[in-house]
């Protein structure tokens, strides 16, 4: 204790105190709000009747105001009859739903519900009209997948929106194809299967489950891969490279040139103030 109080008047002590306070408050906040909880995946995705009724209750509170009491849709939201459990798992699992703001596109954000609640919602929506089911963990496992085929399919059907490294890209009227940096295997599978928002649908008879696993393997391996050449600069190509060439390279060399040609201070004649009028 004396060690601290003895130094309390040092200038650095102020900074240390503020830093400590920030860390303490931050930790407290995180603990209380439970960020990144996401819930556990322990509950099964099968549809028991208790799940469906739990889902119906959750739906009535959080979804019915836009999607209608029976998910029939309204002027502001599409019908979910036939959308399927996979779509619900994707949309709610990535936090896109419930929608917070009416924007050009629903952004990914921290999910409101935990996984067992999401399964319940999914079971309820599936009970209304069927639709694609949530893929199992074997469905989305990349063991033995071919990244060569994945690369071919990805480049032909995905890269034009999501960019070759999955860094995302622009669509029209404020929409965008999001980066693929955070999606889980299951979410990637579900997105292909259900075609969220502007994304096209890649059903299992066009892009087979094995092909989907190949694509998932390609995406996950690409994003996990190190950048052997240094900082990745966003993996979006020559635009950021050009910025670095100008703001890094040329700027550094101009500074070097200024240093090389500068006159030494002890060597200059400075302006003398003349007393002659």
């Amino acid at each position, binding site marked *: 204790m004396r060690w601290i109080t003895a130094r309390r008047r040092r200038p650095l002590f102020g900074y240390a105190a503020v830093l400590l306070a920030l860390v303490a408050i931050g930790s407290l906040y995180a603990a209380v709000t439970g960020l990144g909880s996401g819930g556990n995946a322990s509950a099964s995705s099968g549809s028991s009747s208790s799940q469906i009724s739990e889902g119906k209750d959750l739906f009535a509170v959080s979804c019915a105001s836009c999607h209608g009491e029976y998910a029939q849709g309204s002027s502001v939201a599409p019908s979910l009859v036939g959308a399927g459990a996979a779509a619900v798992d994707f949309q709610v699992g990535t936090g896109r739903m419930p929608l917070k703001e009416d924007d050009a596109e629903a952004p990914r954000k921290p999910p409101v519900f935990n996984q067992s609640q999401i399964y319940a919602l999914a079971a309820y929506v599936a009970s209304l009209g069927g639709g694609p089911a949530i893929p199992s963990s074997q469905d989305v496992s990349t063991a033995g997948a071919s990244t060569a085929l994945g690369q071919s399919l990805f480049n032909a059907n995905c890269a034009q929106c999501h960019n070759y490294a999955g860094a995302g890209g622009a669509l*029209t009227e404020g929409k965008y194809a999001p980066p693929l940096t955070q999606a889980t295997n299951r979410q990637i599978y579900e997105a292909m299967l259900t075609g969220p928002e502007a994304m096209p*649908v890649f059903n299992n008879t066009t892009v087979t489950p094995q092909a989907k696993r190949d694509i998932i393997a390609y995406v996950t391996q690409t994003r996990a891969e190190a950048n052997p050449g*240094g900082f990745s600069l966003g993996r979006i190509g020559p635009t950021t490279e050009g910025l670095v060439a100008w703001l890094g390279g040329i700027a550094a060399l101009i500074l070097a040139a200024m240093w090389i040609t500068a006159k030494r201070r002890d*060597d*200059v004649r400075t302006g003398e103030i003349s007393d002659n009028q």
Partner: protein
Amino acid sequence: MSDNDAGLENAPEEQRPHRVVGTPPPAAGILTDPGRGDDADETAVEQPWIPADPPDPVLAKNWERVAALLFILSALASVGFIAAYVGLEIGKKNGDVVDATLRSNLALGTALSVAMLAVGIGMVIWVRYIMPPVEVAEERHPMASDPEDRSAFAETFIAGTETSQITKRPLLRRTLLAAVLPVAVAPLVILRDLGPLPGTSLRYTVWKKGTRLTVFGTNQPITPADFNSPGAMITVIPEGYQDNDEVLAKATCIIIKMEPGQLQIPTRYNDGVNGPKTLINSMNWTVDDIVAYSKICTHVGCPAALYEQTTQRILCPCHQSSFLANKGATVIFGPAPRPLPQLPITTDAEGYLVAQSDFQEPIGPSFWERG
């Protein structure tokens, strides 16, 4: 001369701010070089025209030590480069290839950067702080030659030209020119075999009646029952051509499945200038709300692949040409001049999607002979 400098002399020297305009000249003034000029006096023993030593030897010695340290650092870094090259292996034999490359690149690059920069910084210190400061002036001589030299040149040139007889013998001159001209053209002519003539090859692709559409990547044919989700899109190629890039560069297509009733393709004809007037868009070229378009953008040939299922827009990511897929790929924005050509499709006996014929207009960018 100014209105406001009375009293300036009363301010203590160290309080007088030194506003500096431009780059101040050196304190020592400019030396002029006594040994320059055309008729410089080249005496046997020349006086040094620049000072031999810096004014402050102690300061220079200190800076010398700094520069020396930097040069030693550079030498060590160069050795480090060699060590990193020998010591850090990359390639298949060594676990994660990408990580191994990263380590090697980092080590080699850091060593090289330090080696170069340390030498550079040391040399700048050397010239700025160890060599004595100096400024010299050199005379510029007029760029234009003296009139005497110019007239002497003219004289020599005229004499030579007269002697060569070329001005006096028009037969010689003209036939010489006639001899030289075709030689200049020959190099252009021998470039003819760089490639075949285009002929009509740009007007057609390999699609024919009955060619199956296969999914690019899996090379599997596809039935409307497989491709039955509204909002679906996939890249397709003619069966068997997956390894032929010249074919793919013209024949690649996308197929899109629309909602029932969403497809409203107008019946369109071309203008019939380069042949009979032909149908180029038709609802009869679709199957089960599935439509096929060329993927090759009509602007400059990028794959126009981006499909927004909610707006039915096909967007080319290169220059943002946009086409409305349910209305015959008409252009709604961007520099593309024409809609994406529609591929006539139907199903064959086994139910797979096949082409009815080739495209009824040339695909891809505009070209002179297109019409």
